[in-house]
């Protein structure tokens, strides 16, 4: 089935790339969404059965795949208005949609992959397709962002490959060449610890380019700033998730070895530094897209701290990942409307948003509550669990600086967003009306956060518990 899906998605992608007709384009987009959902439901029904021996829809894959399939609908549909609003040539249109479909396909395959090298290959493909999307505007800024993105990601993924090679050295004395995650987890206690440590450092550093943690986070920031907003919505949610999946799967192997506490320290150091870096930049920033990108870094830092803290932190980390995906993607989509209204991303040039777009203004206000994890928001629940995990684990020296930093971030984000909403702006040119169906979709995404946080369905909780069951030693 996975082969059929890959072939189907690839051919739809290529057809879209070649297509110049507007109506045919619509049909192809519809077909792609149908195929994506068909495959998602198929994986849901055939859980934990290997497909083509390299792909396994386990609980984590199902969770991330569902998030991807949900977010891909508004992203593709928002793109429609975006692309036709900007009067691009049919050729750039085809390239844009084709690249987006290939990106979604590669993400799907990377989530499902049960072999460490296959994950790596598909993450490599996400880099290539994502860089096409960043390059869409073809201005000096997007050229620079694309260059940085391709280069940093290629080098990082080379590091991941070196990590995989070291892992096979660690396997050396076991005489095993299979790199399936399940097999590796079984063999984990027998692995050579020195090479395993080295391999963990390389793989973790490499995947931080996708996840957006400290060593390699820079590429993602420029990418999210310069990419069209529907793409930025994908980059800041599902593309981060793929980095998380890569690290999580390797982490669950490490969790079965004596290296586990050491790995926790590495992750915590990187994650706390990320929160710190995000805080420092948040105070300086005057660009709303970059501010949201740094907020993603903060959230990824928080959830990785939760993962490293263990206990209930495992559950909280995955819950946080899912909720963050929805809130951040919907916010980026709304920034698209904001940009349409003001033709600017600079916070100082934007004001009185309520007056021009009441529904959008209200959305920004609610999403601010959601993103800063204030009580009715689902992220409040997951962050509370993370704090609890830190307290239980005796990590007070991490918890206190983190709480201070998060508080500062709330202040910095609040001052930016409230300025845009309430402070009168200077002269403003003509306003373009926004599409209210799109605003409706953003509200729906936001509603999912409140629903999942306050009243998580039993099936969802069971899925998360199954996903983290591998970590419980």
């Amino acid at each position, binding site marked *: 089935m996975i082969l059929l899906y890959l072939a189907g998605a690839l051919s739809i992608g290529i057809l879209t790339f070649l297509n110049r007709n507007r109506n045919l384009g619509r049909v192809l987009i519809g077909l792609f969404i149908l195929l994506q959902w068909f495959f998602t439901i198929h994986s849901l029904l055939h859980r934990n059965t290997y497909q083509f021996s390299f792909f396994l829809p386990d609980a984590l894959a199902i969770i991330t795949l569902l998030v991807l399939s949900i977010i891909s609908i508004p992203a593709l549909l928002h793109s429609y208005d975006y692309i036709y609003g900007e009067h691009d040539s049919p050729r750039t249109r085809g390239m844009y949609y084709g690249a987006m479909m290939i990106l979604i396909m590669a993400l799907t395959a990377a989530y499902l992959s049960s*072999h460490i090298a296959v994950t790596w290959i598909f993450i*490599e493909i996400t880099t290539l397709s994502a860089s096409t999307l960043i390059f869409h505007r073809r201005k000096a800024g997007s050229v620079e962002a694309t260059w*940085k993105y*391709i280069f940093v990601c*290629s080098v990082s993924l*080379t590091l991941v490959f070196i990590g995989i090679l070291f892992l096979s050295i660690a396997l*050396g004395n076991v005489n095993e060449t299979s790199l399936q995650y399940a097999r590796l987890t079984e063999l984990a206690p027998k692995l*050579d610890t020195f090479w395993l440590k080295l391999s963990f450092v390389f793989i973790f550093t490499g995947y931080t380019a996708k996840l957006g943690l400290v060593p390699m986070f820079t590429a993602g920031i420029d990418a999210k700033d*310069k990419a069209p907003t529907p793409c930025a919505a994908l980059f800041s949610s599902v593309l981060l998730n793929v980095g998380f999946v890569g690290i999580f799967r390797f982490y669950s192997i490490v969790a079965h070895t004596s290296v586990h506490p050491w790995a926790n320290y590495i992750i915590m150091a990187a994650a706390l530094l990320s929160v710190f870096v995000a805080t420092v930049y948040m105070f300086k920033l005057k660009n709303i897209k970059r501010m949201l990108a740094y907020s993603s870094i903060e959230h990824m830092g928080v959830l990785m701290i939760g993962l490293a803290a263990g206990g209930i932190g495992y559950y909280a980390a995955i819950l946080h990942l899912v909720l963050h995906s929805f809130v951040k993607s919907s916010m980026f989509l709304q920034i698209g409307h904001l940009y349409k209204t003001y033709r600017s991303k600079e916070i100082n040039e934007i004001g009185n948003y309520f007056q021009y777009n009441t529904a959008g203004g209200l959305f920004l206000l609610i999403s601010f509550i959601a993103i800063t994890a204030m009580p009715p928001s689902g992220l409040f629940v997951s962050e509370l669990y993370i704090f609890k995990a830190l307290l239980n684990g005796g990590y007070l020296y991490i918890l206190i600086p983190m709480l201070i930093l998060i508080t500062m971030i709330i202040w910095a984000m609040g001052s930016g967003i409230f300025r845009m909403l309430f402070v009168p702006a200077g002269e403003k040119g003509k306003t373009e009306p926004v599409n209210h169906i799109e605003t409706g979709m953003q509200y729906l995404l936001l509603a999912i956060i409140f629903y999942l946080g306050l009243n998580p369905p039993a099936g969802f909780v069971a899925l998360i518990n199954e996903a983290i069951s591998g970590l419980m030693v």
Partner: protein
Amino acid sequence: MTKILLIVFIISLLYFAIANRLMTYVKILALQGIILFGVAFIELIELNVVNLILILLETIIIKAITIPLFMRYIINKNNITREAEPFLPNSMSLIIVTLIIVVTFIISNAVNSFHIHKIYFVSALSALFCGLYFIISRRKIITHVICYVIIENGVFILSFAVGNEMPFLVNLGVLLDVFVSVFLLGIFINKVGDVTSDIDVSQLSNLKD
């Protein structure tokens, strides 16, 4: 025989440090491609036909012929000046690269694991670190791509150091990786040339906080 080839490979890194012209860099890449083929051929002499064809494709066809030709095409097409213009003088580069090689020797002796072949490990790590050093010490975008290929060459050698053969699929992935990244970067350089007048990294530093 492989030892001689790998020593030549390390010498090519030293030569890279003191070379002045872009075309010399491209020739070094071609030489490294041929060396890699020699190493792979001797190492994997008993391997089956499909794998042999794949290795041949990866080293000779792509690394030794296609990529250097493509680089030359880009350099000519965009009228990139022939000098490499490093930030540091060549003598400094030579000292640093020598230090890198010495340090990798010491590291690989310290590691002392019987699972790996030491000389492969030394040349792989030297290529990796030298590539990273060349990236930060050179100004032009095209040299960054060339240095990226050097890093990839190091990774290729490392996969031999590991000893047990990597699966077919992984090989295919590496091939795809090198092929696509280099060509994408190459095509992209042409586009950078359209936007900014000279292809220089210092032009690409407007995005910052």
